[in-house]
């Protein structure tokens, strides 16, 4: 019940006129970011980060998280009306959303995405409110070995469950860690990997790198296919919303599995809304009575995808607030924001910054309500943004990105770095190297290294410390299993061929 009184206190913070306004502006900008195909949630939040420097901490986190909620809503608009995913997590929304729009059911598809996503968010926030305090309490007992084990777990989920090539996931994470270690050594203050350059002493800023690889990389990628948006018209009537709610009740199991799956995947460090949305779509299709109809415009496809994506977005903030470990790349940028504002992310926030934590949780409810109504009412307006020609949109995004990377340290060198990492991001995307491990490695690098070195100091250089403490041992064991998992997957068929295959025709 303490949670309830804390939540009420949080509403007191989040419902001040200024914070409601901040949330509305955040959601509005978020929807625009979500709608624009060249601008994703991660780079969008990174670009807007400098605007929070003059805000109070609570307003700042409300602003950034509202942008995230807005982007979660906005991605569906582009997917359904234009058959182009506005965000990576709404790729699966195009599968059934666009066919629905072509059949003249655009309003219905949009309303399924918004209403389904909204209720998924709502359910997830309730889960969040009740899971967060005990998890933070548990995390308070964490020492360096536990923290390192959790980080290890975060990166092993990429390698083991991230999808795509395991080795590429691993390489991407290692490069992120290496980028993080450029600059002064956190323990001894020795310059590392700076190669006698003064500019490199302060290291690579994660905002610059994220804007580069996610934002500029995406612009370069979209340059290949001369983008011309040709879309369907969409307007949501009251009848669409009523039909949606009725159909959602009939298909409640799809919504519920999508939401719980999404929340859980969001909580897992590192994996955010994108894998959650694909998994949920796959599950809904596999267990459907008519899987062959998926892809031709069934509402279940949109419902499963959007509810999982929204739930994962909320879930991704749970480890961020309780452990200081981001649950998704976008949450990683927010974590970077917390450091810039001078806050120490982690369980202590629940004790020292109660208004911050509960203000954030309360604002999740408010932000999602704002997002739902804004999207239901303003869809035609948001869809109009896509009528802006690429020749204006691309340079605009480049310029706004430059401002974002410049403003963190006030130096143009960072804008050059942004361009460099834009090219890196482009190459990574072309060769299907995942970018999320890199971003999270960069943000968590210092924390991971400190935890590892402190653990070794505690144990006088022995690895056993990660296996003798119960929480650390559990996490380490799961992490090791996940690291080995891809190898097993390769090895098992190979062994089977060797051992059971008929030998020499006999």
């Amino acid at each position, binding site marked *: 019940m303490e949670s309830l009184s804390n939540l009420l206190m949080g509403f007191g913070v989040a419902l001040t006129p200024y914070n409601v306004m901040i949330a509305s502006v955040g959601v509005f900008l978020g929807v625009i970011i979500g709608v624009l195909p060249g601008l994703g949630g991660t780079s969008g939040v990174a670009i807007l980060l*400098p*605007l929070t*420097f*003059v805000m109070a901490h609570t307003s700042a986190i409300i602003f950034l998280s509202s942008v995230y909620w807005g982007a979660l809503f906005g991605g569906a608009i582009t997917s359904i009306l234009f058959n182009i995913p506005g965000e990576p997590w709404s790729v699966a929304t195009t599968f059934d959303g666009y066919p629905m729009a072509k059949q003249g059911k655009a309003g219905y598809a949009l309303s399924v995405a918004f209403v389904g996503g909204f209720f998924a968010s709502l359910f997830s926030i309730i889960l969040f409110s009740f899971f967060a305090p005990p998890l933070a309490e548990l995390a308070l007992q964490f020492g360096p070995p536990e923290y390192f084990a959790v980080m290890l777990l975060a990166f092993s989920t990429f390698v083991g469950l991230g999808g795509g090539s395991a*080795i*590429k996931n*691993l*390489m991407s994470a*290692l*490069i992120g*860690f*290496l980028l993080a*270690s450029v600059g002064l*050594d956190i*323990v*001894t203050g*020795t310059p*590392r*990997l700076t*190669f006698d350059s003064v500019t490199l002493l302060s290291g690579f800023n994660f905002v610059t790198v994220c804007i580069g690889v996610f934002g*500029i990389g995406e*612009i*370069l990628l979209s*340059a*290949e*296919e*001369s983008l011309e948006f040709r879309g369907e018209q969409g307007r949501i009537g009251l009848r669409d919303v009523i039909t949606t709610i009725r159909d959602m009740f009939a298909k409640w199991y799809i919504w519920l599995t999508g939401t719980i799956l999404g929340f859980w995947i969001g909580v897992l460090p590192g994996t955010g809304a994108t894998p959650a949305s694909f998994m949920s779509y796959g599950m809904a299709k596999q267990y459907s009575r008519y899987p062959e109809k998926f892809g031709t415009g069934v509402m279940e496809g949109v419902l499963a995808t959007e509810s999982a994506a929204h739930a994962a977005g909320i879930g991704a903030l749970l480890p961020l607030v309780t452990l200081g470990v981001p649950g998704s790349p976008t949450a990683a940028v927010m974590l970077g924001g917390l450091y810039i504002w001078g806050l120490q992310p982690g369980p202590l926030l629940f004790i020292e910054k109660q208004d911050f934590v509960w203000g954030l949780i309360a604002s999740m409810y408010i932000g999602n309500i704002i997002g739902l109504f804004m999207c239901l009412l303003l869809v035609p307006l948001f869809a109009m943004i896509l009528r802006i*020609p*690429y*020749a*204006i949109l*691309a*340079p*605009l995004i*480049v*310029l706004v990105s*430059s*401002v974002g990377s*410049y*403003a963190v340290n*006030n130096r*143009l060198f960072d*804008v*050059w770095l942004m*361009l460099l990492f*834009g*090219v890196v991001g*482009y*190459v990574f995307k*072309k*060769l299907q*190297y995942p970018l999320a491990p890199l971003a999270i490695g960069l943000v968590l690098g210092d924390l991971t*290294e400190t935890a*590892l*070195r402190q653990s*070794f*100091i505690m144990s006088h*250089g022995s690895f056993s410390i990660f296996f003798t403490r119960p929480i650390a041992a559990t996490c380490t064991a799961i992490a090791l299993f996940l690291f080995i998992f891809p190898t097993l997957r390769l090895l098992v068929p190979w062994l089977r061929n060797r051992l059971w295959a008929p030998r020499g025709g006999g």
Partner: protein
Amino acid sequence: MRKAEIITSAVFLLISALVLYEAFSLGFGWGLEGPQPGFFIFWLGLGLGLSSVFRIVQVLRDRGLLPGANFVSAKAWPEVVKVLVPMVGAVILMEFLGFYIASALYLGFFMRWIGRFSWGMVLLVAFLFAFSHYLIFEKWFLVPLPKGLLEPYIGL
């Protein structure tokens, strides 16, 4: 595609060599009070190096792994260069002219060159962008953007 994969892995291998060199010169063993500064990067560098070699072997051995497609198709890559070069130009201009003028020039150039907009439209959008950014960043959010040689003349 195969060539691009191998080049990328080779670049990573080179980076890992640099990192290992740095780790050796910093020391990566056990110092007086714990691991030495090169300790963490030594293992990272080693991991990256081994993964790159593994990846190169993987690409070379598995002929069915990659489609024969080019990294960038012959038709697409001029488009990418057309977007990339003005970007670089814009940042060079920012070094000399400051953000506002450089951004207006870049936006205008891109609109005229790629989008073939009328001059009126070009001027309008470029001016509105620079002016609104001035208001948002300089006035409301107090984030000063880089200024060049020309701003002092109009009293900014």
